[in-house]
């Protein structure tokens, strides 16, 4: 009935206007490509009468004689006003909005919004920025480009994971990774493989997303922007919008790009090349397992090199059973030569097209990577299809499906163990010619190696102990939208993310840790489905007031199935099948499921240039006790475009906007944390298998309640001189309370941890970004500089009564802790013993171990980036600098490298000995006097650098990196080719500043909360390459 009356009114109004009017027609085209723009609002100035352009950009409007001008508006384009003359044809060319600040961003629930109307901070990155210098993992491409986004690339291994943290760590447990949403559907970012001090880093979920298919990425940093996404959004959301075909743009377009990059280690340790393998200056090889003189020792405290000495060595010829002495000489590049040039080649072809009622885009990408480490690779094929259409006037459907197949024949071992080849380069003999080990078996099939005590031949590890991976993933969604009226529509949709990851780990016979070999297969299947509906109302109530309201619901279901089988020892060498097991096979499986149902609403009320946003969401989670499983959380924000409110805006001011917002986000936990169970052990005795049961270390809790994050955010945007200068400032204050964490409890209680609601973490900070159009010359010369800065102050406010430390992780005696009053991630280990003045105390010339204390903290003080782009006609040059100030790192390479005498600094005192700087106990046994006892360099280094003395290997992780560089040229038109572009690109090019010796300070094991530890991860890579792109 209402609808009918509305139509009547509309009819009446139209009829009235017919009285004295004329018809204006015209076409609205894009300045960029000359194509018609459909959907542009054409409004008669001073009225609310208007029409939309059709699919070709054409329009026709009846205007009264009194009308003076037409206004053309379209999101993402600069608003235009054209004064009416006698002509009845008005064609308009619209310009894309010059700067990002006034652009359109995709916000929660996939709703596009004008950025200037938002009450919270959103920063976006266009797709071409991501593919500019081509990273396999899309996360890495965001580095340095968005204020407040901290990205840690774990290593240079193929497929290695990256950790991304927005506005600091909020939760003690979990990985604190933001939620990734692709075209409205959450995508799992779980780890595909264990990464710790052992294992293989198989990367995490978002690495599957193909950068070539991305239209744009919006980073919703705080909970304010993300509240509508619910539980998983408390760490922020990264919204990825994929490329779509354009409706109404007739014809078919084809785009092709090829990117090839070449990788080499960014940084290798500075080794000493004066002394070879051994101890106390002695070495002679017999069997490499302590049978000769220090020949089982994998350290370089042996005889002096390059002085004409002849010594029997591992590769010396044996004559009549006697190993012949051979020249004892250095091989300064032995580690460098071990690495190969890694290659990564990406080919992408995309076809897109459309007509009046439909559009499609098909894209195929082939990514083929060969690692820097011999015999490691990663191959990925991505098929993406998206399509949309309007089967009837009011009905539109769209959907997309992505299939990704990733494969590796070998991913390198990653932890600090024999399966990671880096381990033996932290130790080792400096005289070794490592490439001579390439042949890793003797003619009789026996092992060929330099050491038979601790290490595998590195080539054996990489060729025989392989870690294969095959992953199939399908994700996509489909949506149906129905438009009831101009202002009321509804949609329903379903999204699915399904992946199956299969890994195998082979260990061959004669392996140093597993002499009888080993084989394991693991398969994980993950499925998440999201079904949702949304009712959307959007109406201009008066000239000045607009109201939009959305209400909807979502059902999320997540299933995770893990199966593993294992042959602990092989019966027949070289056959990798679990049936081929010498002892009882092992098998494991787990099934986990959770669901969240939600109802939510959001809305915006705007009055002129004032915008009030609000939202609310209620979740029901299966993981919480029935009585506590429903929880509601709201958000509210207000923003005002001050510059639009001014009666007379000064010409130099383009935009002035202020915003404030408050939000709360609730979240749940993992399944099965409520009631106690027993666990099954490995069992006793293969033949008669006695099963064993034990009480697990985690005590569940049937009284858990949801955890909440509160956040307040205030910000401003300013733009001057026709947007030549853009400034964005945000201040935020967020607190996470009632965290569901396994709080450590006294082991004497019978358990190690209890799940409990406890702990409070606060993150306060500022984010600034400054865009400068330094040169914008009519000749086409352009220099744009984007600067971003973020300082986050993280504090663990409290844990739980009586608990003073929360251990995030521990490797040997180095603990990573959360300590109240300090930022997350205190590095806690042994200092030297010191006198009252802080001098290191020596005994017999050897520095003594003191007490445990906080030695550092992995959280950086601030991070920032500077991106420069210079353009002249088709030529473009850009480079990105990335700076991390503060934070600390513990380096195992430094520790053992000094202990083992392979690093440069271990040359100090080799001949004359070392007098350690510090004091010793005087003869009275009470006072301290300066230390004057000389000890050998070997004794000194072994005491001062070891895993029971961490102080000496903790460093300030501040660094400045030349992160990206690109030099490219785009040819506008060559024959049928559009936009042929050729560019030279580079990533992670140089470590311009760092005080950490020997290693890249940017490194980590995984994307968990355990950070700030370097344990011999493979070095990060420096990539150089080129890219060619063309459109037909």
């Amino acid at each position: 009935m209402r609808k009918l009356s509305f139509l009547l009114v509309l009819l009446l109004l139209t009829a009235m206007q017919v009285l004295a009017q004329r018809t204006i027609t015209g076409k609205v085209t894009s300045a960029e490509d000359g194509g018609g723009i459909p959907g542009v609002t054409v409004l008669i100035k001073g009225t609310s009468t208007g029409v939309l352009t059709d699919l070709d950009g054409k329009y026709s409007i009846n205007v009264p004689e009194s009308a003076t001008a037409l206004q053309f508006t379209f999101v993402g384009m600069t608003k235009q006003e054209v004064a009416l003359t006698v002509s009845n044809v008005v064609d308009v060319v619209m310009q894309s909005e010059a700067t990002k600040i006034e652009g359109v961003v995709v916000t929660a629930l996939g709703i596009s919004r004008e950025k200037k109307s938002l009450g919270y901070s959103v920063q976006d990155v266009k797709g071409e920025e991501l593919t500019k210098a081509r990273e396999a993992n899309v996360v890495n491409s965001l580095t340095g480009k968005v204020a407040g986004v901290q990205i840690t690339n774990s290593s240079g291994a193929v497929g290695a994971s990256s950790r991304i943290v927005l506005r600091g760590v909020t939760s003690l447990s979990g990985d604190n990774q933001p939620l990734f949403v692709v075209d409205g559907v959450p995508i799992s970012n779980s780890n595909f493989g264990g990464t710790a001090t052992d294992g293989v880093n198989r990367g995490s979920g978002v690495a599957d997303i193909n950068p070539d298919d991305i239209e744009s990425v919006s980073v919703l940093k705080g909970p304010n922007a993300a509240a509508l996404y619910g539980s998983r959004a408390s760490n922020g959301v990264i919204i990825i919008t994929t490329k779509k075909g354009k409706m109404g743009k007739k014809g078919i377009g084809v785009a092709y790009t090829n990117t090839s990059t070449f990788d080499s280690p960014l940084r290798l340790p500075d080794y000493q090349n004066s002394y070879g393998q051994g101890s106390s200056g002695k070495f002679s090889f017999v069997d490499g397992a302590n049978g000769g003189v220090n020949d089982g020792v994998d350290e370089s405290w042996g005889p002096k090199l390059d002085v004409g000495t002849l010594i029997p060595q591992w590769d010396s010829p044996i004559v009549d059973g006697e190993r012949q002495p051979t020249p004892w000489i250095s091989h300064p590049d032995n580690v460098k030569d071990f690495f190969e040039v890694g290659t990564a080649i990406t080919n992408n072809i995309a076809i897109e097209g459309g007509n009046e009622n439909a559009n499609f885009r098909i894209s195929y990408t082939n990514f083929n990577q060969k690692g820097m480490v011999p015999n490691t690779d990663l191959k990925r094929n991505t098929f993406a299809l998206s399509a949309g259409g309007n089967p009837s006037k009011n009905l539109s459907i769209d959907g997309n499906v992505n299939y990704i197949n990733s494969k590796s024949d070998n991913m390198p071992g990653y932890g600090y163990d024999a399966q990671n080849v880096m381990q033996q380069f932290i130790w080792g003999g400096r005289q070794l010619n490592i490439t001579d080990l390439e042949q890793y078996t003797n003619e009789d099939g026996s092992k060929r190696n330099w050491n038979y005590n601790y290490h595998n031949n590195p080539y054996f590890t990489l060729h025989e102990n392989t870690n294969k991976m095959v992953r199939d993933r399908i994700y996509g969604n489909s949506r149906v939208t129905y438009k009831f009226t101009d202002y009321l529509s509804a949609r329903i949709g379903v999204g699915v993310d399904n992946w199956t990851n299969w890994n195998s780990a082979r260990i061959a016979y004669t392996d140093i840790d597993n002499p009888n070999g080993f084989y394991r297969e693991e398969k994980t299947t993950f499925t998440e489905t999201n079904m949702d509906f949304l009712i959307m109302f959007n109406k201009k109530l008066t000239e000045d007031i607009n109201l939009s309201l959305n209400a909807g619901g979502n059902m999320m279901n997540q299933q995770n199935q893990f199966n593993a089988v294992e042959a602990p020892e092989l019966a027949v060498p070289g056959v990798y099948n679990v049936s081929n097991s010498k002892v009882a096979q092992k098998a494991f499986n787990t099934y986990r499921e959770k669901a969240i149902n939600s109802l939510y609403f959001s809305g915006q009320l705007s009055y002129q240039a004032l915008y009030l946003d609000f939202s609310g969401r209620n979740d029901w989670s299966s993981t919480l006790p029935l009585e506590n499983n429903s929880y509601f959380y709201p958000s509210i924000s207000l923003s005002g475009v001050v510059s639009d409110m001014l009666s007379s805006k000064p010409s130099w001011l383009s935009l002035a906007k202020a915003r404030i917002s408050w939000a709360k986000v609730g979240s749940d936990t993992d399944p099965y944390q409520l009631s106690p169970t027993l666990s099954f052990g490995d069992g006793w005795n293969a033949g008669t298998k006695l099963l064993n049961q034990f009480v697990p270390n985690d005590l569940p809790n049937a009284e858990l309640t949801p955890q909440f994050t509160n956040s307040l955010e205030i910000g401003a945007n300013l733009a001057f001189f026709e947007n030549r200068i853009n400034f964005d400032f945000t201040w935020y204050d967020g607190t996470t309370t009632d965290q569901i964490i396994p709080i450590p409890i006294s082991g004497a209680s019978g358990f190690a941890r209890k799940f409990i609601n406890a702990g409070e973490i606060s993150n306060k900070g500022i984010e600034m970004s400054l865009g400068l159009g330094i040169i914008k010359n009519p000749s086409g010369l352009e220099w744009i500089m984007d600067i971003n800065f973020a300082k986050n102050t993280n504090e663990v406010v409290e844990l739980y009564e009586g608990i003073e430390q929360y251990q995030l992780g521990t490797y040997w005696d180095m603990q990573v802790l959360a300590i109240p009053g300090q930022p997350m991630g205190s590095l806690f280990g042994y200092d030297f013993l010191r006198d009252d003045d802080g001098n290191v105390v020596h005994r017999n010339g050897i520095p003594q171990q003191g007490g445990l204390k906080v030695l550092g903290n992995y959280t950086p003080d601030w991070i920032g980036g500077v991106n420069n782009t210079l353009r002249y006609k088709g030529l473009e040059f850009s480079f990105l600098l990335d700076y991390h100030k503060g934070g600390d790192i513990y380096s195992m390479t430094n520790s053992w490298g000094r202990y083992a005498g392979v690093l440069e600094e271990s040359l100090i005192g080799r001949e004359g000995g070392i007098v350690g700087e510090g004091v010793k106990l005087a003869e009275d046994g009470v006072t301290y006097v300066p230390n004057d006892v000389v000890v050998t360099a070997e004794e000194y280094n072994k005491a001062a650098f070891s895993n029971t003395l961490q102080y000496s290997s903790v460093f300030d992780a501040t660094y400045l990196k030349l992160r990206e560089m690109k030099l490219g040229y785009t040819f506008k038109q060559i024959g049928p080719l559009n936009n042929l572009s050729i560019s030279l690109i580079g990533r992670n090019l140089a470590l311009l500043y760092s005080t950490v010796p020997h290693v890249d300070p940017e490194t980590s094991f995984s994307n968990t909360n355990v950070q700030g530890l370097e344990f011999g991860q493979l070095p990060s890579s420096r990539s150089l390459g080129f890219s060619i792109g063309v459109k037909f």
Partner: protein
Amino acid sequence: MKRIVNIKFLTALVVLFVIASSCTKDFEEMNTDPNNPSTELAAPEMLLTNIIESATDRTYEIFLGHEMGNCWVQHMAKVQYTDEDRYIYRTGVINNAWNSFYSASGMDAVTLYKVATARKHDNYKGIALVMKVYNTSLLTDMFGDVPYTEAWRAGVDDGGILSPVFDTQESIYRDIVKKLDTANLLITEDGSEIAGDIMFNNDLLKWKKFANSMRMRLLMRMSSKDVPYVTAELSKMVADPAKYPVFESNDDNAQLIYLGSNPNNNPINENRKTRDDHRVSKTLIDMMWVNNPNADWRVTVYANTPSAGGYWEGCPNGLTSAKALAYLGNGLTKTSKLGDYFTAATSPGVLMSYAELQFILAEGVQRGLITGAPHTAQEYYEAGIYGSYHQYADEIVANVVAEGFFDEGVTIDEIAADYIENGGAAWDPDNAMERIGTEKWLAMFEQGLQSLFETRRIGYPVLVAGEDNENGGKVPVRFPYPTDEYAKNPTNVAAAVSVQGTDDLNTKVWWNK
């Protein structure tokens, strides 16, 4: 047409709305762990298997049992990465020891007791008590005052105690010796059968013997603190072997015979697959061989001859890594590795041996703590030595014959007799405790933790800290509290330190004061 679409669409929306808001009924079922049994489904025999395996694995764990136990008591020495041997311990190892004796084998034993009580199964109850006492005694003998009355009570039904108070060692000892008495009464051969017993193969009499033998060990430890009580209890037990059966031979030894392959192999075997950081201690080899008037023939089993040739040679304890490697020109090839018997996959993990019990009885008679014993101190002492030789009978006989020290056909008793007569092991009433302590130390080779407790209690043999030690020249007599406990239970650990004394390696525990 348009109308139909409208209605269908709206209906779909309404249905979704109803589903989203009401469909939480299956949440409870969905959130029930399908992977693990609930506590009601606990299987006592499976718990028992785990208790035995876990407790023995931990006792023999390489960093704890081998590097702190065996090295500190100078059975073994480290030749590479010598930190532990210089009394620079790893905090992680101490944390693991505490956490696993409490929350792994300890908690499983407490759970077994609960399950057995609910099912009225006295034998499992008794066995659960024996294993709970084994774990408790290790903890208190390592650290002194530790949580006991409030320990193992984190569960909501058990009091929900997350930060248990510490009890004095004295009160703990007084309770655990009573618990073993109770266990002895609970375990009866005509009671319900048990299963899953990988130590005694479900032989209930052997569990009784273990309960009583361990009780004697613990009574002897508290013997300097309450002579009348200890005398009464020991004498009562010795007087009534039918009621208080104890170990009668090595067949009764409380030991887990490991299996051939991981994860059921001996932890030392696992370690030796990839590491070569240990040598037999010079203190031990000097006594058994280098400085021995003749020989203690067990040396042929305890140690291998050095790879560079020659007879047994020990490595001094507590040298820096560089010095240890350079010892005798090449510490690695010139010194003895641990004997093959002990590095075998199937080498037993001994919780208590027949030989140890004989030395306890010898001490009891010698010090007048056992009255009315059927044997003299000397007889028990010699039974201890014979028992120890019999423990390795096959290996000793084979080795001494192979090395040409004895002729083919020699018996283990002849070899042991030779040692007592010629090897400096003859009973010496004037230095009885020195003899008992020293022989006990030799017999308890590779039982690092227990041997460390006994050696520091008896005071023999006198051990001297290694030259590069970092404990002020003292051999440790206690383990420091775990750093974990300082973080998780700070108030109670601070209270314990204020009662017991400085939390370091040198503060003596109650029974040692």
